[in-house]
Structure formats: structure tokens, C-alpha cells
């Protein structure tokens, strides 16, 4: 085999390897983008879980808190509002935080009813609600982690070359915009 043939073969191999590498970069970007989309919809799954729990909570409380109608009604109203929100992440966040606040009021008032506090259903519900709030929080956190990972890949060389070629766009973080919303941190109802 002449030197020329060997050089040509080497060049072909190098080009092939480069192509494979770029394919790997592209596939990596696709996977990260899909992960971001999936984790966004997972947030909704956890939000729905909260919506489903609330009617139970209101039912259990009603029996004990006969004179606290307003507090209970606020919770129900907030829930309906949150379910019916249209619009972007900011709108959703506002409605969700309002719902959290009404729940907190409810639990604050429930402190005055020792029989209610000792009720087994109530205790179980408290744990479930704490868990749900955590799950929503973790789902958002996971979404943000995935967005960070995708955005890094889109900006860092050499994957940014592939990203630009195929039109991968950076995603937005899930952020709480106003200070008031930021003041509703992890909730603990126990």
C-alpha cells in the first residue's frame, strides 16, 4: 500500500469519526431538550395532585370548624382559580402561591381545634399536603436543573455549533418574579 493510499484512508477515518461525534452531540441535545419538556409537564402532574387533595381536606375540616366558613371558602375559591388559570408561568405561579397562602391560613386556624388536630384523617392529610408542596417544589427544581443542563450544552463549544445549525433554543428557568411570591417558601403544615 502506498503512502498516498494510507493518507487517504486516514483522512476518511478522521472524517467519519468527526461525523459520528457530531451525531452524538446532536442526539445529546435532542435528549436534553426532551428531558426539559418532560420535566415541565411533571410539574403539572404534581399541581394536579394538590388540587385533588384539597376537597378532602375541606371536608374533614368542615366537620370540626363549623364557624370558620370564610377560611374554608377562600381555599375552595383559590383552588378553582388556580385550576382555571390561563397564561404563562408567571400567572400560574401567582395563582399557586395564593392557594398556598389560603392553605396556610386554614392550618393556622386549625391550630385552635385540638380535636381536629388529633384526627387521624387530618394528620394523614397534613402529611400528604406537605409532601405535595415538596413534590411541586422538587419538580420545579428538577425542571430548572434540566434547563441549566440544556442551556449549557447550547452555549458551550463544540456543541454550540450543532445547536446553532439545527436551531436549538435556550429554555427559560421557572422563576418566581415578585418578592411577594418569593416569600412563600417551602411549606410545613406539621
Amino acid at each position, binding site marked *: 500500500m502506498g503512502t498516498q493510499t494510507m493518507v487517504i484512508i486516514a483522512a476518511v477515518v478522521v472524517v467519519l469519526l468527526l461525523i459520528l461525534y457530531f451525531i452524538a452531540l446532536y442526539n445529546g441535545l435532542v435528549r436534553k431538550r426532551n*428531558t426539559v419538556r418532560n420535566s415541565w409537564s411533571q410539574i403539572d402532574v404534581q399541581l394536579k395532585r394538590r388540587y385533588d387533595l384539597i376537597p378532602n381536606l375541606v371536608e374533614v375540616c368542615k366537620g370540626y370548624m363549623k364557624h370558620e366558613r370564610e377560611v374554608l371558602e377562600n381555599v375552595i375559591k383559590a383552588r378553582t382559580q388556580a385550576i382555571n388559570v390561563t397564561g404563562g408561568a408567571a400567572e400560574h405561579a401567582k395563582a399557586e402561591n395564593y392557594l398556598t397562602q389560603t392553605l396556610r391560613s386554614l392550618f393556622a386556624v386549625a391550630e385552635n381545634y385540638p380535636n381536629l388536630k388529633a384526627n387521624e384523617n387530618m394528620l*394523614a392529610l397534613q*402529611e400528604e399536603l*406537605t*409532601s405535595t408542596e*415538596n413534590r411541586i417544589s422538587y419538580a420545579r*427544581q*428538577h425542571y430548572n436543573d*434540566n434547563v441549566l443542563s440544556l442551556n449549557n450544552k447550547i452555549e458551550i463549544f463544540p456543541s454550540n455549533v450543532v445547536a446553532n445549525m439545527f436551531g436549538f433554543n435556550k429554555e427559560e428557568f421557572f422563576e418566581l418574579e415578585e418578592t411577594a411570591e418569593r416569600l412563600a417558601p417551602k411549606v410545613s403544615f406539621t
Partner: protein
Amino acid sequence: MTFEEQITHNKRASLLLIFIFVLLVTFLGFLFGYAISGTPEGGFFGIIAASFLAIIFSTIVFWAGKDMIMGVSGAHKVDRRFNAQLSNIVEEMAIAGGTPVPEIYVIEDSAPNAFATGRNPQRSAIAVTTGLLDKLNRDELTGVIGHEMSHIRNYDIRYMLLIGILVGVVALMCDFVLRYSWRGGFALGRGRGRGAGSLQLVLLLLALVLAILAPLFAIILQFAVSRRREYLADAASVELTRNPEGLARALEKIANDREPLEAANRATQHLYIINPIKGLRQYERSSIFDTHPPIRERVRRLRSM
């Protein structure tokens, strides 16, 4: 260091250790093969033999399932009816990490401890003691579960199995060489191979010395990797919970608990979050033979995040 920095640092350090390990095995394979046959070709054959051993070991070890470990530890499987909070915490950590939910097992023992097992996240399980459930609050329990799930997420169980295999290969090779030398089978020392003289003798001596010392060195390496992966699991737990204090307090509580965990033994000690048979001494001291880093240092790193 932030938890991100600690995660990167720990991953790199353990990769380096693995690299050293593989180098060790390759070098030993070559050296022993050369010493026995007296030729460099024999050296390469030694490397192939070492790789072959590793593959056989891997195949055998990977067939052992998680049921064996759970049986040995006296753990029984539970579902959400046993403890809703435990099931919730495990699911919360699965959401935070984007991983499947592992099976949950419980060990009836008042000593607080936990471990994780499973070669990949799809087939994994976590075991906790009833003592852990009784003595930790929700945040602390979340920290511990986060640590265990990070072991699963980072494939630590598989990682440590591979290390164990490498240690076994080293031990076997060294054992073989020592027996072989006892029967005087080295071609190298007899000038049968190419090039006689003092270089040959030095290599022969080196082979013998290493055959004695390498298994010890391999075990020290194994413990070093184990400690590194524990630090990694701590940092990765914070990545999930964003709450280092929970795990820090949990570690302190578990370390200060004086009860011995009855179901644990030497074979399973490395799996637990805190070594269950080393006792209180492990708060401060560290030795190269410890599977876990000293707790004071773990807590310090957590609180510096």
C-alpha cells in the same frame, strides 16, 4: 465548596483512582507474564489473562441480585401502608432526581441506619431501619434518603462491584505468581529469555515484591474509592434536597447513637450510610482501611456548602 464543586471534585478523584487501579492491573499483568515467560510477548499475554479474569469475575458477580443482600440483612419489603411519610420522601427524592422510584425495605432494628442496593436505577432498592424512622425528623430522613438515592443515581453499587472485581483479579494474579515462583518457574531469572543480567534480576525481584504488596495496595485503593463515593453521595444528596443541614444533623444523630446494628456484618458494612460495626471511634479518626470518611469531616463539608 458548593455542592456542585464537591460533586465534580469527587467524581474526578474517583475516576483517577479507577485509572490507577486499571494501570496497576495492566502493569502487574505485563510484569508477571514477562517474569514467567521471559519474553515481552509473554507480558502481553499476561495482560490478556488479567482481562479475561476480570470478565469472568464480572459475569459471575453481576448475576447476584439484590434479593440476596436484603435477605442477609433481614429486610422485608413494605409499601405505602407501612409508613406514608417514608414512601412520600422516597418519591419526592425520585422526582427531584428524575429517577425511577426504588423499592422500599425495612429492617426491624432500633439502631438507625440505611443502605441502597441495585445495579441500575430501574432495579434498585433502599432499606431503612425502624430505628431510623423513629429517631429522625422529616428533614433529616429526607437527607438520608437523598444520600442513598444518590448512590443509586451515580451507579455507586455497580462502581464498587467493579472495584471489588479488580481487587479480586489482583489478588488472584499475585497468588498465582507467588505459587509459580515457589516452584521456581520463572524463565526470567534463568536467562532463557532474551537479555540476561541484572535488569532481569531487578524485574524478577520487582515482580515478587509486587506480588506480595499489590493485593494490600489494591485493598487500600478500594477503601479510598469507597470513601470518595461517600463524599459524593453526601454532596449529591444536597443537590437533591438543597438542604445540607438536614443530612448533617442526621449524620450526627446516627453517629451518636450507641446501639449496634445486629443485622450488619463485614460483608455488608460498606453499604450503610454510616459504618455500622465501627462504633463511635469513627467520629474523628480516619484510617486508610475505613469504608466511610470520618463523620466530623462529612458534617463539616456539608455545612460549608
